[in-house]
């Protein structure tokens, strides 16, 4: 691929990734406010979260100020994202593979960050000793990331195929996602072994992209790896693998959303209650025109007499 080709492909893939991720995130966030559906334990409940208690344990809770922790949910999610806390707690047999797989992805993301920083340091002509430190770290991160990710992904494919507990729920897309990732990890590992200085080459490639240098050239193994990685970047946001976005909503907006009504919410609720209903069962009594309030509110007997 020519230098300009790399630019178009790389920036195009990044743009598609960002646009689709942002679009899908906004789409989820703009779904209407739902009825409360919280689930204990809720980590922001100060002093109560350790046993799953909530502010509803307080006598006349509405007279008291809810004591919420900001840090507890952050720490909970950090353990969930980085260490797969939930899988460790509830599905220990799956954890080693799933952790290796996710750790591989995180390490590769970190490697890219270090490579980007190295590229910026090279551009700004920082002394080479500093750059070398960043490149050395990036190199270790790459090796560890490809190795762990590859092992995890291959292991997960085998587990899905062999474990009778999982097998009947598999779909082609689940296998395809994992195979795609195996290809990414293996080509990355091969490129690392095939290159005398993987991290340096990666940094120079990124420098070429950042500075719009048309002279970017790469050896075949790294080219193949980067092509697969960029294709994956385009593919990722189209799939359910963006559960890292969905998870924010399933936890913060549903499980942990124990917020009583506020003025903004009431305004939105009034709009939702005003919508026409068209469910067909006789008892609902919907005709496509009556709204939620019409269907669910009956005047009290005294009001009716009046």
């Amino acid at each position, binding site marked *: 691929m020519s230098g300009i080709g790399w630019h178009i492909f790389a920036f195009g893939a990044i743009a598609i990734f960002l646009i689709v991720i942002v679009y899908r995130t906004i789409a989820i966030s703009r779904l209407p406010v*739902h009825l409360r559906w919280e689930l204990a334990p809720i980590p922001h409940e100060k002093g109560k979260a350790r046993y*799953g208690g909530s502010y509803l344990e307080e006598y006349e809770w509405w007279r008291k100020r809810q004591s919420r922790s900001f840090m507890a949910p952050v720490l909970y999610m950090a353990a969930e994202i980085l260490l797969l806390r939930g899988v460790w707690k509830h599905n220990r047999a799956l954890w080693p593979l799933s952790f290796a797989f996710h750790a591989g992805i995180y390490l590769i993301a970190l490697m890219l960050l270090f490579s980007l920083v190295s590229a910026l340091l090279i551009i700004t002509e920082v002394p080479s000793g500093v750059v070398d430190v960043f490149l050395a770290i990036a190199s270790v991160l790459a090796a560890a990331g490809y190795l762990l990710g590859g092992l995890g992904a291959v292991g997960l494919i085998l587990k899905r195929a062999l474990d009778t507990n999982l097998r009947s729920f598999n779909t082609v897309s689940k296998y395809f996602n994992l195979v795609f990732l195996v290809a990414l990890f293996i080509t990355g590992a091969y490129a690392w072994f095939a290159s005398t200085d993987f991290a340096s080459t990666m940094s120079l490639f990124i420098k070429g992209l950042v500075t719009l240098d048309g002279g970017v050239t790469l050896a075949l193994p790294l080219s193949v790896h980067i092509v697969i990685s960029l294709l994956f970047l385009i593919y990722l946001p189209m799939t359910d693998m963006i559960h890292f976005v969905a998870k924010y909503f399933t936890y913060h907006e*549903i499980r942990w959303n124990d917020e009583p009504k506020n003025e903004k919410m009431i305004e939105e609720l009034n709009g939702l209650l005003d919508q026409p209903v068209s469910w067909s069962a006789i008892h609902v009594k919907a005709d496509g025109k009556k709204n939620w309030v019409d269907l*669910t509110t009956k005047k009290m007997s005294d009001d009716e007499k009046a």
Partner: protein
Amino acid sequence: MKKLKLTDIARGEDTQLIEINPNELIPLPPPYDRVEALPGFKQLTEEQRGRLVCNLDGVVSYAALPKTKNKEEEKKYVEQFVSGMKKLLSKENNWTFLQPLLLSIDYCAQCQTCCDACPIYLASGRNDLYRPTYRSEIFRRLVNKYVRPVGKLRAKLSGGDIELNWTTITRLYELSYRCNLCRRCAQSCPMGVDNALITRELRKLFSQELGWAPKELHEKGTVLQLEVGSPTGLRPDVAIDNLQFLDEEFTEATGTKVSTPWDKEGADILLIHSAGDIISFPEGPISFSIICNAAGINWTLSSEIPGYDGVNYGVFYDDVQLARVAIRHAQIAKKLGVKKIVMGECGHQHKAFMTVADRVLTGDLDIPRESVMTFLENLVFSGKIKFDPSKNNFPVTLHDPCNVVRNLGIVEPQRRILRYLCPQFREMTPHGVDNYCCGGGGGLSVMSDVNFTDWKVHVAGRMKFKQVLEAFADRPGSEVKKYICAPCLNCKLQFRDLLDYYGAREKSGIICGGLAELIVNAMVDVKKPFIQWEEL
């Protein structure tokens, strides 16, 4: 045990999908470990099989559908099912749960972590049919196929394409009532996916679009409650008469004056019991009268339809019915001019009225609502009532109603009362927010008929019964009377079925009652023992 594929749901027409074999269920401790010594699982008669759709697991309740007259009728229902799926995914018809539903449909990783959290799946000996993921994944694939763009093509390409036919929808309908909606599965899901919610949405689709719901929950449930006052059929005047009679009877039996106020305008508190307690567990409502009067509370019950019955089965299957009942309860409180509403000892009433319906109770219907647990805790530790905990010196364990504990996070108040008033209080394992459902959750406790109770006691309530026996393992014999404190009407009904079925009163001396009864039993001013072991 037969391994099930997801696609099996659509195959075999009238053929029963699985057979429940009691020998494959998880074993119980002695003396309940010998399957042959227990009453058998009732089998369906040929007449029932000819009349009803029973193509799932050989279990039939009032939820069972009559067989259709012809293929056209079946086709009509299948089309309605597709239309219902579309409505479930629309903002207008399902704003109430659209975001949680879409996230649960779209982001399941198929890791099966939730299965080992499900007491029904575990008790069944890990029967595939009862996996929390089995019905959810079928529903997910149907939604993706029939509601999403190019769904049919994607279904063909992705493998595991599920055919939508009469067999599929009737089995899915029945299967949606093999879940307690306890949300233990949701709690264990690393993604935050909620299979109990999917099950409830499925029930909702059947109810709100096809008009299918178990009679006990709908026709004899919410509909009867809104018309007559209570799913028990108890009319307002009969409810008042019953409680007046009970007031007199308990005054005589306990030597303590019992009186229950009705329709007192301007009272501080509206207490809403479950009317089922008045009929099946009258010691409960009477205990409240004794406690409130002893503490000098300005309180009242309401005889307005349905203000004397706090149950709200809508939370199990239908948003419209849920809102109708909740709004009605709030209107009654508003009319009485009370300062707050206190939930009775009823788990799903707590969840329905305190949180789920919170966002439909706007304006002047947003009257403060409090749990009975915090209300009682405040009274017990107020110093207004004298207690002698030695009167409760027998083994007591606490059952955590899922809707109070896991769903609302009300864990400690009831425990503080029991630690104070019951010297031999002991926890089950696991307990608190990790508890197991009694097996009657999700409306199942009020569903019976044919052989549904057999399923509830054999499968749904099995983990809980095992837990109870383990909690009392140090005093196994019937000579030591033991008390399961279950502060929830539906849980008590399920425990009654469990204890009856296994003969646990006779064999192990175990009874079940509420929390308020234990409080009254420990009151110094109540001279005679309040808990009557032989009657519970």
